[in-house]
């Protein structure tokens, strides 16, 4: 049985002393946390260890001795060290020895009692593993919490050997609080013994944050109480509030600020990350907003903008008039029904005329409005962008009206046509049974029905053409608004803090990848996932990169981030299908709301932005949203106000990022987002921490072939000789599951 000794790199060159740490029997590993130097009084040592045990709930004990001396230790020292084993009884007793200035190490293990298991081999091997204490402490690789389907009283999930080590080091922070400048009874060496790491700024911030948070939290609660009062729930205001994206964005920001300044401490690292990401996003937002403000208010740009706005609106209206004149003629060589054409054309022209007069009425106030809008940028760039999007919506309101008229007319026509077509065939729609039944009509019913059917049929091209033209115009406006909303969502949900950590301190982000974390009860368990048919034509490295070892999730959505992005022909097919649905879908299959009627297209992430276009008022969370998101009708936590409570399209899945741990988007999630941030290693995101194998410059390369450098241990039961391995593992949690 191999005995693993985890030794901190900071203690490699300290003076001789006792090894203090924890023994994990089920993995037969000894985790050395610190070295306690001579001279010491055994009673005080035992007291200290008892205190540490009580404070940290980690079973620290004296594991053995550490000897760092000039030359070969004399017999007396050796016997003294062995005698210490009687003062601090521990089974097994570890003796590490290193020659000062040399590269020879010796590890011995002494078993006092006879091995209880007679079948265990008598020879023990010792594997010495060095770990960087600071980074192991700061990483988040800890054993998972108890799985939900186990009872609380059952044995806890057995933690992997390395997770137990990480957990031990992280929980023994109490031991690392004293440094060599403290006047204590014992002298310890660990990673902080040269001075406890702290920062004045951090301490000051921590002290100041209490009252500041309290004050701001009360202010924010006042603001939200005002916002929640009954006046705003009455019909006109609530309707307007729900349509304007500025109100939504303000509400969103208010939530964020409430989260940041809440006086409750974050319970786990996920919540802490979320808070930090929110802070970073708010700060970025305000910084960008102030930049925009200074740019706008300098050199009277607002005046220029205001002067340019009315002519632009006039120009747009003129272009629309030209378009309508063209439609009223013979557009693209098609022959329209003259009378209907003229009626519709004049109707829309009159609307444009009304619109132009409205714009001219508003023109003196434009500059003031723009100035105030510019002021709102100090609340954040997102607010300014949402205001911009609302202004665009208001300025193109006539296009929206035209679209609505055209859609209504077309919808009525299609309803009528389908119903009369059924009459023509002698069938009827049975509302009770929700199906088409045959029906015997009277002769006069048939006659009038056929007549009307013919009329509607021949008027169809005209109406269809108007509908198509205005729908495309509306699509254009929605596209522009969609881009603005995309930018706003980006700023809202980009996890800047996690990104910064990934770049500067990647070990802080190391965590259990999602595939190995305890799953929620309602998710089916993952299954073996073989490379799909689509990848069989790819070369193996490509298949590896694209799917052969995806983190397994039962829901297909997360797998999308590793699939090759859709080709242009796929996208155009999707758009064509959407248009087909728009024009020819039977009325009971069509969605019955006004925005666009485009069917939900495609997946949830970046490639689902055509779907975003369709849902102007129903923006779903971007993939980087650090909040664990699940729309309420999925039974999960409702976190983003952009997910509507009443999503009219039940087929659209709100994004459920479980490919990465919930605190940051990252990566998976892993392998991160569709914007193309790759995970660290080419072989994929869901591995555990990788120690980096280093070939150390001195020790084993020289000794490996020669056996003369090996230390022979004195006789003793069950002693072992460590073979100098060619490689020492340096434990470094560098792999990131973002």
């Amino acid at each position, binding site marked *: 049985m*191999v005995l*693993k000794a985890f030794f901190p790199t900071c203690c490699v060159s300290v003076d001789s002393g006792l090894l203090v740490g924890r023994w994990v029997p089920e*993995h037969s590993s000894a985790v050395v946390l610190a070295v306690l130097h001579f001279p010491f009084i055994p009673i005080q040592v035992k007291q200290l260890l008892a205190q540490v045990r009580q404070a940290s709930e980690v079973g620290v004990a004296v594991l053995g001795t550490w000897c760092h001396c000039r030359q070969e230790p004399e017999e007396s020292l050796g016997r003294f060290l062995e005698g210490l084993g009687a003062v601090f009884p521990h089974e097994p007793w570890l003796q590490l020895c290193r020659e000062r200035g040399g590269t020879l190490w010796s590890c011995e293990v002494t078993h006092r009692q006879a091995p209880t298991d007679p079948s265990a081999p008598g020879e023990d*091997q010792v*594997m010495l*593993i060095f770990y960087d204490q600071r980074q192991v402490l700061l990483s988040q690789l800890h054993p*998972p919490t108890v*799985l939900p389907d186990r009872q609380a009283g059952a044995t806890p*999930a057995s933690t*992997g*050997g*390395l997770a137990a080590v990480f957990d031990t080091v992280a929980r023994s922070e109490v031991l690392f609080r004293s440094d060599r400048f403290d006047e204590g009874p014992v002298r310890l060496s660990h990673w902080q013994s040269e001075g406890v790491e702290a920062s004045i700024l951090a301490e000051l911030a921590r002290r100041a944050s209490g009252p500041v948070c309290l004050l701001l939290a009360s202010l924010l609660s006042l603001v939200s109480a005002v916002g929640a009062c009954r006046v705003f729930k009455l019909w006109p205001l609530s309707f307007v509030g729900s349509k304007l994206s500025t109100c939504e964005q303000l509400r969103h920001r208010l939530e964020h600020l409430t989260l940041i300044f809440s006086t409750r401490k974050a319970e786990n690292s996920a919540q802490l990350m979320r808070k930090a990401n929110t802070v970073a996003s708010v700060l970025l937002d305000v910084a960008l907003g102030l930049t925009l403000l200074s740019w706008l208010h300098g050199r009277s740009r607002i005046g220029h903008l205001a002067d340019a706005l009315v002519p632009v609106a006039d120009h747009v209206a003129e272009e629309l008039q030209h378009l309508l004149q063209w439609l009223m003629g013979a557009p693209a060589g098609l022959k329209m029904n003259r009378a209907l054409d003229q009626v519709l054309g004049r109707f829309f022209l009159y609307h444009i005329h009304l619109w132009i007069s409205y714009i001219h009425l508003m023109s003196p106030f434009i500059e003031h409005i723009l100035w105030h809008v510019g002021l709102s940028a100090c609340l954040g760039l997102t607010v300014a962008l949402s205001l911009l999007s609302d202004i665009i919506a208001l300025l193109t309101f006539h296009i929206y009206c035209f679209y609505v008229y055209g859609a209504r007319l077309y919808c009525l026509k299609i309803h009528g046509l389908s119903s009369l077509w059924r009459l023509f065939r002698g069938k009827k729609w049975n509302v009770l049974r929700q199906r088409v039944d045959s029906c015997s009509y009277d002769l006069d019913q048939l006659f009038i029905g056929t007549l009307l059917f013919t009329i509607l049929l021949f008027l169809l091209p005209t109406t269809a053409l108007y509908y198509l033209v205005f729908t495309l115009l509306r699509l254009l406006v929605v596209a522009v608004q969609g881009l603005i909303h995309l930018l706003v969502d980006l700023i809202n949900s980009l996890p800047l803090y996690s990104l910064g950590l990934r770049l500067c301190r990647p070990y802080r982000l190391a965590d259990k990848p999602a*595939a*190995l974390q*305890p*799953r929620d009860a309602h998710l089916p*368990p*993952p*299954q*073996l*996932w*073989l*490379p799909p048919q689509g990848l*069989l*034509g*790819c*070369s*193996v*490295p490509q*298949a*590896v990169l694209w799917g*052969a*070892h995806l*983190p*397994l999730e039962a829901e297909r959505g997360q797998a999308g981030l590793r699939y090759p992005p859709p080709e242009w022909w796929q996208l155009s097919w999707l758009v064509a299908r959407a248009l087909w649905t728009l024009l020819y879908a039977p009325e009971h299959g069509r969605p019955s709301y006004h925005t666009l009627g485009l069917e939900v297209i495609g997946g949830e992430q970046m490639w689902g932005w055509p779907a975003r276009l369709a849902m102007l008022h129903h923006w779903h969370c971007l993939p980087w949203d650090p909040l664990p998101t699940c729309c309420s009708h999925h039974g999960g936590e409702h976190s983003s106000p952009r997910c509507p409570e009443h999503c009219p399209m039940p087929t659209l899945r709100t994004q459920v990022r479980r490919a990465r741990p919930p605190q940051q988007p990252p990566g998976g999630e892993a392998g991160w987002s569709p914007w193309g941030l790759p995970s*660290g*290693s*080419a*072989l*994929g995101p*869901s*591995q*555990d*921490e*990788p*120690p*980096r*194998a280093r070939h150390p410059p001195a020790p084993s390369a020289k000794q*490996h072939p020669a056996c003369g450098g090996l230390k022979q241990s004195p006789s003793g039961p069950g002693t072992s000789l460590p*073979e100098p*391995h*060619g*490689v020492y*593992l340096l434990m470094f949690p*560098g*792999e990131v599951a973002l």
Partner: protein
Amino acid sequence: MEDERSFSDICGGRLALQRRYYSPSCREFCLRCPRLSLRSLTAVTCTVWLAAYGLFTLCENSMILSAAIFITLLGLLGYLHFVKIDQETLLIIDSLGIQMTSSYASGKESTTFIEMGKVKDIVINEAIYMQKVIYYLCILLKDPVEPHGIAQVVPVFQVPSSGLQLKKARGVEG
């Protein structure tokens, strides 16, 4: 104890497998891939530059030529840094874990470590690539939720090789 053998991969390049035996509980396998051949590099560069020159004669814009040079340089750097694997190492330490290191031609190294407790088995997987059947070694990982299930399949080496040699290598690993 070192041992070196050479094989060939599915594209015909020479692979060198080096086995090192440090102790009964620690072994290392090192697979060295064929180097970037001068011939292919020259061919790609010449193609790109000839195409750029052709475009230049059409458009009379000298930016195309500089753009072609930049593209070639950046492409080569990107290829060396992200795609071209020089050497892959598999380090197996008993009762601790398996570590896979890939070092790229630009010097970048990426490592992955799998704890021994998570490894279920090592198997040889088959895949059909155009008209051939290729084999690659992969590690099966245990599923934390379901005790008999498999959570993941992790390929070990990114360079596939033909079956017989892989079987020999697997038999050696044991």
